[in-house]
């Protein structure tokens, strides 16, 4: 999807990318990216958290005018509040036990 954003940008459509994988995003380098340190599938936060969903969306849209060089990767200041992990190939990503 980062490749698609790069292609659109070259054709004159501005893109802003809201990612939960910081290292993956840094490799493909979409024109503007907001890294949200949440589990994959919670790019915009938790169910029903309208305030956070709107804030992440608004922050991503703000990058359209604030970013001055392609490939910007901005960290959204959010803490998921509990540990999480990624299990490729499984459709359940269960929280690891704390400690």
């Amino acid at each position: 999807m980062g490749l698609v954003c790069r292609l659109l940008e070259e054709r004159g459509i501005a893109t802003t990318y809201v990612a939960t994988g910081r290292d993956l995003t840094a490799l493909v380098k979409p024109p503007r990216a907001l890294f949200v340190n949440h589990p994959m599938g919670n790019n915009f936060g938790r169910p029903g958290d309208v305030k956070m969903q709107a804030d992440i969306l608004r922050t991503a849209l703000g990058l359209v005018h604030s970013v001055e060089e392609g490939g910007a990767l901005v960290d959204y200041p959010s803490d998921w509040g509990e540990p999480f992990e990624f299990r490729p190939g499984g459709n359940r990503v269960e929280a690891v036990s704390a400690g």
Partner: protein
Amino acid sequence: MLPGERMKEPIRYVDALNDYYGAMGNPPYKWTVNETAPLHRLDKPLSECRVSLLTSGGVSQCAMPAFNPDARNDHRLDSISRDAAVDDFQIHDSYYDHTDAEADINCVFPLARLRELAASGEIGSLAEHFWSGFMGRIYNRSKVLEESGPAFAERLEDERVDILVAAPS
């Protein structure tokens, strides 16, 4: 998050995926590595921009077929009306935990939030359609660059989209 509080270390997906697919006997995956990126500057404010939305999270409307949750090289791209009901979606993707997104589609595809920004005038307007496609695990990247990507660009140009919000999962 409190000021000065350190953000938790991000998950290292590249290492996790290399280990996972390597253990299955696959050759090392050739990650796309770009050193620079294009940037198109807009000369008008957000309040005059037309915005669309793209998810790669295996999201489809209930009347449509499900996405293949284990897809490889699936270039399917669904157009979704900007007025679609938030409870009219299904998610099929074995790559991530979509429990929360099933409870509230705005977790991955914030169409209700984008509609609110249009209603309040923060953004100029909504494109006629939002989009779901370009699921992960596309190995034939040249097809994205030469076929499915440009075809998508034409659809956005037809709807005079200024900004695309893209959320991978």
